[in-house]
């Protein structure tokens, strides 16, 4: 239960600048996910927070208590920060039993034996692995090892729990189970959790907030829904969402009131309230832009539905996969992907009618790659269907 504030954190490895001016506030009780492709600095950030790495610049506080102050070379020891860490590799000590692994930290704190026993069993019960207490790590399956690693981290009742890609070594089914497990753990203990992952599904399903990393910088901090609907730039948009977002090139003009976009789909005019005015947008002058269109926001009809935003499209290929069908479509120069729920069959080169929802598209300025027009969220915009 703690609030963490990172200010201007810089980390260099030799000449390699891996963290660039990281500013991040994690509120008490947050489930904050650090998300990004590998090598973007998210694990380094986690290690800075844990105390395993010492940044060259910046400050960090936990509950307003100073933990890092690089200006005076002050770095609090990891064990005194009241946190615990689950490693990607689990880092279970192979020469200790499950019980000994979980008890190690408590023993070091010189906790009475009886209390150690209680705490350990409580943690093992929470993770539902009490029956394995006398096994060695190599006698457990990957999923069980994972539970031991988490049990070891929560046994000392940390105020802050750090998780470094904890699910990446599990198979797909176990991963879904463990996601539920971690979500419950967060709710039950109320512990602040910082979670590192490159898997956007994990980030979107579990977090209360997501910090999106890009080349050592934080690109965006928002709720999962916010990040999904309005990624702040083209790289972020490309990274979030599976299947990937469609990008359609276009030309735009902004007159200070409205934004007019021409593309293969035709002309869209956006009103003042959906435009992101703090971005650098040229006025009264045509510039290149990119439309962002999520595959699931495309509706396909074989008969003309007489909707005002209908365009005619050609099916390039379709990939039915049981619960969903991916359809590659072309409209003029533009090609894009649509996702339909359920099993739908289309023929190659079949003509279809596609209903698009311009207000639910993002607009990016091509030159800067930045978002200039917000997409509206569907569920509180039943009235705005256009």
């Amino acid at each position: 239960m703690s609030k963490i504030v990172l200010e201007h954190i810089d980390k260099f490895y030799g000449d390699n600048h891996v963290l660039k001016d990281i500013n991040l506030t994690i509120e008490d009780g947050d489930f904050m996910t650090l998300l990004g492709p590998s090598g973007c600095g998210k694990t380094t950030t986690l290690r800075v927070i844990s105390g395993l790495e010492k940044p060259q610049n910046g400050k960090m506080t936990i509950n307003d208590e100073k933990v890092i102050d690089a200006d005076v070379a002050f770095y609090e020891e990891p064990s005194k920060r009241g946190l615990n860490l689950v490693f990607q590799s689990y880092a279970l000590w192979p020469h200790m039993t499950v019980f000994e692994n979980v008890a190690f930290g408590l023993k070091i704190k010189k906790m009475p034996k009886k209390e150690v026993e209680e705490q350990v069993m409580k943690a093992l019960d929470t993770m539902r692995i009490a029956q394995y207490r006398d096994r060695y790590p190599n006698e457990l399956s990957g999923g069980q090892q994972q539970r031991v690693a988490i049990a070891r981290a929560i046994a000392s009742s940390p105020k802050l729990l750090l998780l470094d890609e904890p699910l990446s070594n599990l198979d797909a089914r176990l991963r879904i189970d463990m996601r539920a497990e971690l979500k419950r753990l967060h709710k039950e203990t109320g512990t602040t959790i910082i979670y590192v992952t490159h898997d956007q599904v994990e980030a979107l399903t579990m977090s209360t907030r997501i910090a999106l990393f890009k080349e050592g910088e934080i690109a965006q901090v928002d709720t999962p829904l916010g990040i999904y609907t309005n990624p702040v730039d083209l790289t972020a948009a490309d990274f979030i969402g599976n299947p990937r977002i469609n990008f359609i090139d276009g030309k735009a003009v902004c007159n200070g009131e409205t934004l007019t976009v021409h593309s293969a789909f035709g002309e869209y005019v956006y009103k003042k309230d959906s435009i992101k005015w703090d971005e650098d947008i040229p006025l009264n002058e045509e510039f290149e832009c990119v439309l962002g269109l999520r595959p699931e926001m495309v509706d396909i009809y074989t008969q003309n539905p007489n909707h005002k935003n209908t365009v005619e499209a050609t099916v390039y290929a379709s990939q039915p996969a049981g619960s969903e069908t991916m359809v590659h479509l072309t409209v003029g120069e533009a090609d894009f992907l649509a996702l339909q729920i359920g099993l739908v069959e289309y023929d190659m080169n079949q003509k279809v009618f596609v209903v698009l929802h311009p207000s639910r598209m993002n607009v990016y300025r091509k030159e800067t790659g930045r978002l200039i027009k917000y997409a509206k969220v569907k569920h509180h915009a039943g009235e705005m269907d256009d």
Partner: protein
Amino acid sequence: MAKKEKLPKKPMTKERLKNQIFNVIGNPFNMIVFFTLIILFCLIIIPLLNMLQNSFMVAKAELRQIPDAKVGDYTLYYWKYLLASPLTKTVFVEPLLHSLIIGFFVTVISVPLGSVIAWLMVRSDIPGKKILSAFILIPYMIPSWCKALSWLSVFRNELSGSYGLLTGMGIHVPDWLAYGPFAIIIVMCMHYYAFSYIMVSGSLRSINSELEEMAEIQGANRIQILSNITLPLVLPAVLSATIMTISKSIGTYGVAANLGNRIGYYVLATRMKEFINDSPKGVGYAMSLLMIALAAVTILVNQKLIGTRKSYATIGGKGTRSNLMHLGKSKYPLLIFLLVFLFISMFLPLFVLVMESFQIVPGRGYGWDNLTLYAWIGEVENAPSKGLSFQNGLFKNSEFGRACWNTAKLSIIGSVITAICGQFLGYITTRGRGKWYGNAVEQMIFIPYLMPGVAFSAIYFSMFSQPRLGGLIPSLYGTFMLILLASIVKHFPFASRSGSSNMMQISVELEEAATIAGASFWRRIRSIIIPLAKGGFLSGFLLTFISIAKELDLIAILMTPANYTLSFLSFDYSKEAMPQVADAICIVIIVFILVCNRIANRLGGDVSKSM
């Protein structure tokens, strides 16, 4: 990716300074690194510099040769003596030429030999592979000077006090066959084939056979596959082995001394030892510096060619699925080739050594009337022949007892200390990988590896044969301490490599997890590192133990009678025309090595890592 930006300088405040000092001092790991660097500097860099200095400094023995000189004056006398004097031809050019010739031929023969054996053992369907592979490295485990002795027991002629097998049978053995370059080259090949075998077989194992199968599908025949696919892939390993063989064969002392000295055939190593044991020592120092330079150049060339520091280690890699090449009709001729190789390099030397140790007069055949247990348990009073009347048999001989004791003492103390240091050094190099101190430690440890054994001991001789630090360190010449010290430091490269491969298996995260749990540095060492490092420590210890126990080159210069080890005693006896007793000692050592190696293998060690 991340742009390169300069780290901004921070204003230095009192608090910052205090915290910084506390951060460095408060971490025991930093302190250990600090002391390690100092100790390595004292044990490796200073002796090396000291020898360099001594080669430019007038010593007492040469006062008369150098007019108006005082002891300790700067002089070029030794270097001139070696490189630009009427004696240069005999003391330097000839030995150098001999060394190079030997190095060249040993390499030309043993690299293809080892590589072919490796290919046969790894990639072909040669029959009896399992049994063969158990034997194929045994010749390498027999110390090279033991093989030299067995060569002598076959080929010794009138020049030596006692005849060898052939001369005894009435076959005339010319000097060029019995002694000198030919003999040295053959014996060394029987030893150094192992480098190529170990490296190439490691490399072959890591090659996916699908690469070869693809070529087969494309229509290549067996020869084309070998020359176009397999060979280029193992070329780095072959190259590595080549360089290593050159550098080792140029530096070897034991074989050259046994087979060359009696006909006055000197190589760099043997000539250098003469200078250091007699005078002028400065010339010997200068020579050993040249030998170190030669070895360093070859190894650096290797690094340049292969492009990695690690190339002196066996090339690792998990075995992938591999289908064996069918040898077809050539199966049996190749098998016979392997058997002949094993016969010559393992069976014959062992047989000859064992048999000669039972002979009354060497070279008079194996009839009952010429057999005796004297060399093992006889006493001088009832010596069956004049040739045997110098010494008691082995087990009645006080010198043997003392040598056993010395060997045991040296190898046990030496290998325990080396193995412990090795684990620490390995810990520092793995945890400091890519950091300046990790590199510094690695570089320093690498230096003893560059040096031939004789040259290395010459350094220690030059450093410690006089009191140092104003008498704080007394003259160590002739003490067990000095031999122990040299053995330990010389084995640092190997021990630290085994230590770091051991530490590499202990993931840093295991330690970090303990750090977060609040464990201090020493607690981490005690609760995490030591329990996990135990197994690797034991096998590393045993391999060092074997290596120290059979060492001859390294200790030859430092030896004084009171400190004779088994290998040096055997070397000494073989010079004294007591081949039977020398052979008996060899056999004792070989049996000992094989037993230890078996135990080490059980514990997961690998003799191929002890090169």
